C-alpha cells in the first residue's frame, strides 16, 4: 500500500525502525490509559526523524565506517545522536484526532520541567518548539508521533552526551530554533546539572513511576467534541 518515502531502502539498507517504545504504545492501545517509561540508551546510535532526509541530515558513510546503527523514529523533527549519556522519557497518551500537538508539546514539556524542578534540577525552561534549555543550551529535545488513537511523545535528556559524535555524524541541521542562533552542535548542546546519568534516572523514576504521575498525564488529554 505504501507509495514512497524519503528514505530509499535500496540506498540506506541498514536504517532500522526505532521500536524501543512500541511496548508502551501497545499497552496504551490496549488499556486506553496513559503510560510512560524512563530509560537509558544502551548503545550509541543515530536517530532520524520520521521525515528526515538521511542524505542531508546525517553523514551516513561515517556512521557506516564507525558501525554506528542508524534508526528512524516515528516522531517528527531532525536527526539526533543517542548515547549512554542520555536519559529518555517516553510518554504515550490515548488521544483522538490529530490536532493540538503544540499544546501537547507544551503541556508535556512543562510537566517534565516541573518534575525536574522537584528533583532539584532548577532553571530549565522551554524554547524553540519543545526544547528543554538550561543556560541558553539545549539539554533536552523531543518529538511527537500522532495517530488516530494515540500520541507518542519522547524526549531525550542530555546528561553526559558525546557531543563530538554529533559533530561527527550530524551536519548542521536543515532547520533550527531561533535561539540556536547558528551555533554549532558543541556550542549549542549543554548538559543538565546532575552528577550522573544513573542519578538522574533513579530520581526521575522515583518521581514518575507513580499513580499520581499517570493521573496527571491523564488530565492533559484533550477530549474531542
Amino acid at each position: 500500500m505504501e507509495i514512497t518515502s524519503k528514505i530509499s531502502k535500496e540506498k540506506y539498507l541498514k536504517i532500522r525502525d526505532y521500536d524501543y517504545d512500541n511496548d508502551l504504545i501497545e499497552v496504551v492501545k490496549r488499556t486506553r490509559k496513559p503510560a510512560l517509561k524512563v530509560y537509558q540508551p544502551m548503545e550509541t546510535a543515530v536517530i532520524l526523524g520520521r521525515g528526515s532526509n538521511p542524505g542531508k541530515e546525517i553523514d551516513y558513510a561515517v556512521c557506516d565506517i564507525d558501525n554506528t546503527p542508524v534508526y528512524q523514529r516515528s516522531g517528527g523533527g531532525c536527526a539526533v545522536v543517542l548515547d549512554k549519556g542520555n536519559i529518555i522519557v517516553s510518554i504515550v497518551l490515548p488521544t483522538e484526532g490529530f490536532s493540538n500537538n503544540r499544546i501537547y508539546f507544551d503541556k508535556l514539556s512543562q510537566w517534565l520541567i516541573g518534575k525536574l524542578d522537584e528533583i532539584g534540577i532548577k532553571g530549565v525552561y522551554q524554547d524553540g518548539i519543545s526544547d528543554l534549555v538550561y543556560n541558553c543550551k539545549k539539554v533536552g529535545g523531543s518529538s511527537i508521533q500522532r495517530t488516530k488513537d494515540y500520541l507518542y511523545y519522547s524526549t531525550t535528556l542530555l546528561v553526559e552526551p558525546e557531543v563530538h559524535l554529533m559533530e561527527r555524524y550530524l551536519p548542521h541541521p536543515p532547520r533550527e530554533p531561533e535561539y540556536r542562533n547558528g551555533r554549532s552542535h558543541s556550542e549549542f548542546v549543554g548538559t543538565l546539572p546532575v552528577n550522573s546519568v544513573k542519578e538522574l534516572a533513579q530520581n526521575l523514576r522515583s518521581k514518575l513511576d507513580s499513580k499520581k504521575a499517570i493521573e496527571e498525564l491523564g488530565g492533559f488529554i484533550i477530549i474531542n467534541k
Partner: protein
Amino acid sequence: MYEFKLPDLGEGIHEGEVLKWHVKVGDTIKEDDPLIEVETDKAAVTIPSPRGGIIMTLKGAVGDILNVGDVIVTIEDGSGASVAPAEVPTKTEPIETPVKVETPAPIAPTVETLEVASGRPVPAAPATRRLARELGVNINIIKGTGPAGRVTPEDVKLVASGEVPTTIEPVKKEAATESDSCPIAVTKTPAMSAIPFLDLDPMPDFAKEGPIEIEKLRSIRRKVAHKMTTSKILIPHVVHMDEADVTELDKFRREENARREGRGGKLTLLPFVIKAVIAGLKEYPAFNASIDPFKEEIIYKKYYNVGVAVDSDRGLIVPVIKNADQKSIIQLSDKIVELAEGARDGNINVADLSGGTFTITNIGPIGGTGFAAAINYPEAAILGLARAQDKPVVRNGEIVIRKMLPISLSFDHRIADGADAARMVSGIIKRLSDPYTLLLEI
C-alpha cells in the same frame, strides 16, 4: 465521490510536509485506514481515511508542502456527485491553551530585576519568548501576571509599549540565562567594530536590484568562513612568488608512470613537492611553526604533517598526511589519492582532517598562472601551486621551452621575513628542478 481536505492541524498551523503516502490511486481502502503522514513542526501525524472506497486521486509527493484545506485525496465511495465534507471529522474543541493565558489582567505587569539576579528564568511559553525577542524586550525582567507568575503575551506587549514603570535596571549579563541573551555563532545584526575604519554595515537590500536566492551558511562552508576570517584578520600575510623548472622532474615522473603501468595509481608532481617542502621546512622551521598571540610565543613543531587542500562537492577540505617526512614518494602518492577520495566522498575520519603543520593547495588541474592562498590558521604558511605548463625561458643565452610550475608561499610575517621566504622558495625550486638531488635527500 468524496473529496478529503487536509484537516486542521491545530494552533495556527496552515501547512504540513508530506512524509509518506499509505495509499496509491486505485487502492481500495476501508474507513480509518491510514492515508497519509504529514509533519508539522516536530510532530509526525498519521491521518486516517474518513471514508471507505477506491482512491481516485492523490495530491502531493513526499516532501511537498500541503495547505490545510487542500483536497488531498478523492475517494470513490459510491455517493455519486462530488461532496465536500462539511467538517473535518476530528476537529477538536479548543478546550485549553498550553499555557493558560488569562483574560487581560487587572493589574499591569511589573518590571523588576530580582528574578534576573537570582539567575532563574521567568516562566513563559515559547511563543511569548519569541514575541519578546521580536519586540526587543528582555523577558527576564518582567514579573508576569499569568498563573504562577507566568509572563503572558499581553505582559510583553505592555512592557514594549512603555505602559509599565520603567525603573528597569541594567540586566547583569552573567546572570541572564534566557534565550533572548543566548550567544550567537554568527553576527546577525550589525556590530560596532573595535578596529578603526572597519565598518560592519548592514547588507544592502540586494533584492531591490534583481532576483536573489538566499542560502544559509552551513557545514563546511561555515567552517571555512570562520577559519579564513580568523586567518586574514589575525595573520599579516605576505606572499612570495616564483617559478620552478620541473622539466626534468616531469620527465622522470612520466617515465616512472610508464614503467609502473598497471601497478597502482599514477605519480603526480604533488608528492615530489611535499618532499621538497619538508626539506625546506627542516631548513626554515619558522614555516612549520605557529604563533601563540596570547602568550607571545612561537611554537616550533618537530613533526611534519602536511595538509593537502581538496576541492569537494561539500566545499574546501584539507586532509592531512601525518608524518609525511617518514613516507616515501610512492607512499605519499597513495596517501594523497586515499585522502582526496575520502574527502570527496565524505568518507574521511576527523583525525585525518586535523593536526596539520603546513598546507599545500594546488589549483593546477583547474588552471591559473598563480594565486595568493590564505594561510590555514593556526599554521604559519601555505604553498600554492598553479598549472605547470611549457613556457619559453632563457637558458645559457638561448630561448628554450621548459615546463614551469608557478609556486607561491603565503607566510605569517610575524614569524618570518621576506628573505626567509625567498630562501625557502629557492630551496624548493632547486630541489624540484633537480629531481636527482631531491631523490638523494630522501
